[in-house]
Each structure stands twice: as structure tokens, then as C-alpha cells.
């Protein structure tokens, strides 16, 4: 028998966990929506970020968030280099799947070579605990991920609405050729988007180290869900991806509480199908 507090708890944790799904999907959504690059390599790169966080905590004895000082700049540069490659060889959306899947295999194998396939668990301290309010609990790590996601969405909205870069991004995602006629330099903008998308991947990957024991292939567990969130949210829509993540997280959590955890994927993906039938463009908030 499920109680009211059980339902409220599932809504709460579903929102927070869904926020993390949204955060994880931001990079893919930007890359796919704006650049027409479906970048499968984001998943092992997220795990690489987790290993950087793990090393920061266990070898250097520092706070996991310090690892972002290493991972964000290096991921930004990596994103730019990847985009340079995509631009040079004119990689279109379909070939991007193949090229980045190959990259996924390469990065994952590099992780196995460097760290072995062994399970790693980072000592996360307070981030692994909860705040208790009466019978409800609020997991701190998930709460932090949620608010970081919110902050990124707000910054993105501001950039999209208030800056020339945002205007150029909107123009490119609407019509790349037409935007070029109006003087938008696609190649340069694409480098920035590629770099920034990888920064989002670095941030999402940090939380893999905080939430889970992990191995080099941990990122693959998220592929289905993150693709669903990205499509559901509307390609290129950071706000849409984040909200889609929350909806998916809540759907999974409530289904698990009311029915059974094994129903979670069914309910979540059924919801995705219904929304795509009703509104094929997804949520598309920009």
C-alpha cells in the first residue's frame, strides 16, 4: 500500500533525478540541434570527467568540484578540436553517428587501458547524504546537480535572448544557409557550441563519480534515456531538454512507486511516444 508521503517523495526524488538527466542531455541537445552532430562520444567523455573527479578526490584529496578546473578547459578544447574535424570533413548528421560511435569505442578503450575495467567508487562525503524534512528526504548530491542544471538553463536563456551570439545560434538552428546570408559565421559559432557542449558533458560526468560506483562503460547505461530526453525536449533546446529530463524522471519515479520499478522504462518511453505523436517537435523551449 503506497502512502501519500511515498507519492510526494517519489515526485520529489523524481524531479531531482530527472534534473540530472536534463543536465546530462544538455550537451547532446546543443550539438544535435544546432550543429546537426549526434555525438555518441559524449557518453564515454562524461565517464572521463568522472575519472578526473575520482582522481581529484582520491589522489589529490580535493573536493570533486575542483576537478572542473581541469576538466572544463580540457573538454572545451577537445570539443573545439572535434568540431574542427567535423567542419573540415563536412560530417553530416548521419555520418556523425558513425564517426562519433567509433570515437566512443576509442575513448572507452582508452579508459579501460588507463584505469582498467575495475569498479571505482569515490568518497563523496556529504554529497552522498540527504536532508531530512519530517518523513521526506532530499538527497544532497541530486539537489546540487539539479540547481547546477537550473543555473545553466538560466545562463543559456540569457545568452539566447540577450546576446548577438544567442541570435546567431537561433538563426543557425533555424536555417544554417539563410543565416550565412545574413553574415553569421557558422564555422566559428560551431566551434564555440562544440566546446560549450563538451563543458556540459564535463559537468554531467562529474556527477557520475558522485552518484555511482563506475566503470569505463558506465556512460552506456545512459544512452537510451538521454536520447529520449534530448528528442523529447526538442533538439537544440536547453530549457526543453532540462524540463524533459524532469518529466521523464518523475514519470519513472512515480511508476516505480505506484507499480514496480520494472515498469519505469515502459512508462517513461510510452510517455515519450505519446508526446512525439502529439507534438513531434518535442517541447522546444528556447
Amino acid at each position, binding site marked *: 500500500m503506497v502512502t501519500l508521503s511515498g507519492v510526494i517523495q517519489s515526485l520529489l526524488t523524481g524531479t531531482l*533525478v530527472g534534473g540530472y538527466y536534463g543536465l546530462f542531455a544538455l550537451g547532446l541537445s546543443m550539438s544535435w540541434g544546432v550543429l546537426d552532430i549526434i555525438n555518441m562520444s559524449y557518453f564515454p567523455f562524461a565517464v572521463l570527467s568522472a575519472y578526473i573527479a575520482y582522481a581529484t578526490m582520491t589522489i589529490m584529496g580535493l573536493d570533486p568540484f575542483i576537478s572542473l578546473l581541469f576538466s572544463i578547459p580540457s573538454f572545451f578544447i577537445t570539443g573545439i578540436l572535434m568540431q574542427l574535424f567535423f567542419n573540415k570533413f563536412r560530417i553530416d548528421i548521419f555520418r556523425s553517428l558513425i564517426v562519433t560511435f567509433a570515437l566512443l*569505442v576509442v575513448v572507452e578503450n582508452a579508459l579501460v587501458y588507463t584505469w*582498467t*575495467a575495475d569498479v571505482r567508487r569515490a568518497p563523496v562525503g556529504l554529497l552522498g547524504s540527504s536532508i531530512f524534512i519530517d518523513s521526506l*528526504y532530499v538527497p544532497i548530491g541530486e539537489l546540487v546537480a539539479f540547481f547546477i542544471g537550473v543555473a545553466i538553463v538560466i545562463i543559456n536563456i540569457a545568452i539566447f535572448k540577450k546576446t548577438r551570439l544567442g541570435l546567431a545560434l537561433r538563426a543557425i538552428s533555424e536555417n544554417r544557409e539563410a543565416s550565412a546570408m545574413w553574415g553569421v559565421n557558422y564555422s566559428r559559432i560551431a566551434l564555440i557550441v562544440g566546446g560549450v557542449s563538451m563543458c556540459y558533458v564535463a559537468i554531467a560526468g562529474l556527477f557520475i563519480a558522485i552518484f555511482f560506483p563506475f566503470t569505463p562503460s558506465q556512460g552506456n547505461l545512459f544512452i537510451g534515456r538521454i536520447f529520449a530526453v534530448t528528442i523529447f525536449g526538442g533538439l537544440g533546446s536547453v530549457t526543453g531538454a532540462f524540463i524533459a529530463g524532469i518529466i521523464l524522471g518523475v514519470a519513472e519515479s512515480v511508476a516505480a512507486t505506484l507499480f514496480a*520499478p520494472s515498469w*519505469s522504462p515502459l512508462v517513461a518511453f510510452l510517455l515519450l511516444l505519446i508526446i512525439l505523436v502529439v507534438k513531434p517537435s518535442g517541447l522546444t523551449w528556447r
Partner: protein
Amino acid sequence: MEEKKREAATANRITRRKAISSAVAAGAVVGVGIVAGLGGYFAGAASGGRAETITQKETVTVGGQTVTVGGQTVTVTNTVTQPTTVTATVTGTTGPAKPVVIGYTLPKTGGFAANGVIHDIADEIAIRRINETGGFLGRPVERLVYDDRSDISQIPPLYERLITQDQVDLIVGPYATPFIAAAMPVAEKYRKVYIFDSYTLPKQATYEFAFSSWATGYNTDIEWPTLLFEALQNSAGKLPKSLVVVHNTHPGATFVASGVPKVADSFGIEVLDVIRYELGTTDFLPIATRLKELKPEFVFQGGLVLDESNLKKALDKAGFIPYGHSSLWPAVGAVLGLGPLGEGLISQSVFERHIPFTQDAEARYFVRNYEKRAQEAGLAYWKADTQSGTSYAMFQILREGVRGSGSLNDEDIGNWLKRNTVDTIFGELRFDGPNNYGPMKTWIAQIQNGEQIVVWPPDYAKPGSKLLYPSPLAKGY
């Protein structure tokens, strides 16, 4: 010895001359290439006297002349491709015996790789031991291992390739139940003796020559929960009043979990719920929330690898820790990484690195060498335990089968195993029951003071240990 080497060298020189003569007859220019090829071939293959027929196509470039045509300077090259057949008899001393090759796959990448690396190291030690003790029938033993990438669709074609193209002498199973199940029809098709180490569906292992090194027993679904509740009753002195079964959709976990309600009922334990979750679940908070609502005294989890660690962490976040928590096949390193939160987790074990297991000399050899190698490989959890132990025992069984039957013939080995008892690092194993399963030899282990030890039954428990229940960490009731 020196004289024999000289004889062999002389034999090689004569053979080369013969080869050169034959090649010259085939054509002067082409012959140059043939001599080089054959010289290398014979040098690498000097063994007993034999006749070899080699047919190969040689591409030879002739010319390189520069001519002037119509005012332009052109470099002309002529290419000749000619098949040449040469028959030569090679004589010499007998070299090292041809190795016996054992082929199989392991998940070196992908979702199962964390345990795959453990099996890889244990197998390496097992093969080393076999070779140190005379190999198979006087021949050295090698393994040919392909990475199945934790992808079940790779298993049948890779095993087909091992048997038909690589023509390995023997095969063993890959790692993990679904993969072992996927290779079994291939083994059956070619009538290969098929020994495997981590299979949890004994009722489906119907192939005549299938043998499990993990002695789960044929009725694990009943025998394992029975042993668990007996341990709680007799070793801890207390049974839980209620429990919840939480299991994933892995067929082995589903099979074992399916027997729990019936057995629990026979011990007077109320089963409050059976919660099923998808394999690959990462978010365990909904399950933790549900358990917090139900407040069972005991959680029976049918999970594997990281599930137990993830559920324990989620339970801690939810503010509920049950009095008892058992699992099936956790990644021990991940549980130990939880620190105090991992303490008290109960699981299955066939081998741990303590007495009575280490009273066996070969078990000590295995522990010493495995742990050294695992540390060199950089494994965070490097201690010998069930995962590595079953892998090592798999090769022990194969070794005894070959030596006992005196044959490399698969059916001979299989038939010998069915009739005999095999001594392994976790005791004597028999294969005389249904589907070649003997009695269950899987024991109750528990994380105590940062180490996994066997606590039940007394014959296999670490001396002086007992099952700790209820957990002092329990909270949220």
C-alpha cells in the same frame, strides 16, 4: 645438443638449395622472390621430415627504364604475376611440441568488463599452473581469448570462429550467465566439452557435456535461500519476521529470487513484497523509497555487480537501513568502497582467501599469484574470491578431465568428468546429478571489518566467525 643443432642447420641449408633449384626452374626473376619466401618459411617451420607443397603468387617488378615518347619522359615498369608450385622435403630434429590452444571470449570492454578483467587474470594464473605441471599430455597450453565487448550478439559468431577457423583444441565458457548460455548451442553443435564458471541457470544447462565450475547445485532457487535462513537461525540465532525480495531481470537472479517466498514461508517469515527492476537500473531511489515505506526486517536482493552498492547508497539517502541485507553476486570491491555502509552485506561465495580454503596447496598458489598479478594490473579490489576462484577452478576441471581421460577428445573428457570427482581449490566437485550438477557448494559470506568472509556452514566458515544479524547500522524503523 650442439651437434643436433648443427644437423638441423645443415638440413635447413640443403632444403633451401632444393627450394632454390625448383624456383629457378620456374623462372629466374620470379625465383628470387620465391627463395626469400621459402627461406623464411622453412626456417620457421623446421620440424620432423615431411613434404610440403606451397603455391604462392609472386608479384615482381622488372625494369624501371626511362624512355622518351613523343617528347615526354616516361618511366616504364613491368609487373609480372606468376603462380609457382614448389615441392620440398624438410628434414630436421623435432622442435617443441605444438601447444594445445583453448579458445574462449571474455568481456574486456563494456558493461561486464569489471568482472571480465578478474577472470582474465585468474585464467592467466590457471594456464601458468597447468604449464608448470606438465601441460596437457606433455604439450604446452595456450589460450586464445577474444573480447566479446559484453555484447551477447558477438558470442555465437566468435565461438564459431574459434572452433571452425581458429580450430582451437578445446573451448571454455565466457563470463556471465547470458553469455555462457549464448555459447552453449555452439558448443553442442560441434560436440565440444563445455566447462564454464559463472552460470546461474542450472536447469537450462541441458547440453550433455556442459559442466559448471561454480557448484550452485541443481535447485539453487530452493537450496540457497534455505541455507541463508538456516544461517540466520543457527549462526546469528535470529530470524527476521519480514522480508522484501528485490531482484533485477537477469535470468539467474530471477531464478534464485523465485524460490525465496516459498522458502521464507516455510521458516515463518512474512514476505511483504517482491520488487522487480530492470537490469542496468541506475536510479535506486524509488526502490529505497518503497522499502522505507514497507520497513522489512530483511531485504533479499537478487542483483549483480553494482546493484547492491547502488541500493545500499540509495537506502542510506532515504534514511532506511534494514536489519539484514543479502545479495547474490555483488562486486565486492564496490561494496567495500562504501565503507561502514557496506558492512554486514551477505552474499554467495564458493571461495575466500582464508582457512579452510587456503589449507589446500593449490589454493595458496592461486591466491598468492592472482593477488600479485591483480595488484600489478592496478585493480582496486585485488583479493582472490569467488569470481576469480570459479575461473581458476574451471581450468582445474579441464586439466583433470584431459589428464584423467588421457585424451584431448571432447567426448572422452566429458565422459570422464561425468564419472569422476575433481579436486578444485574449493573442494571436490562431482558432476553426476541432473544436467551434470553435483551438490551445492555455495556458502554464506558476509562483509565483516572490511573483508568478505564465509560465515556459514561451519565446515567452510572462517574460524571463529559467525553471521552478524541484526545490523547495528539499521535505522528508519
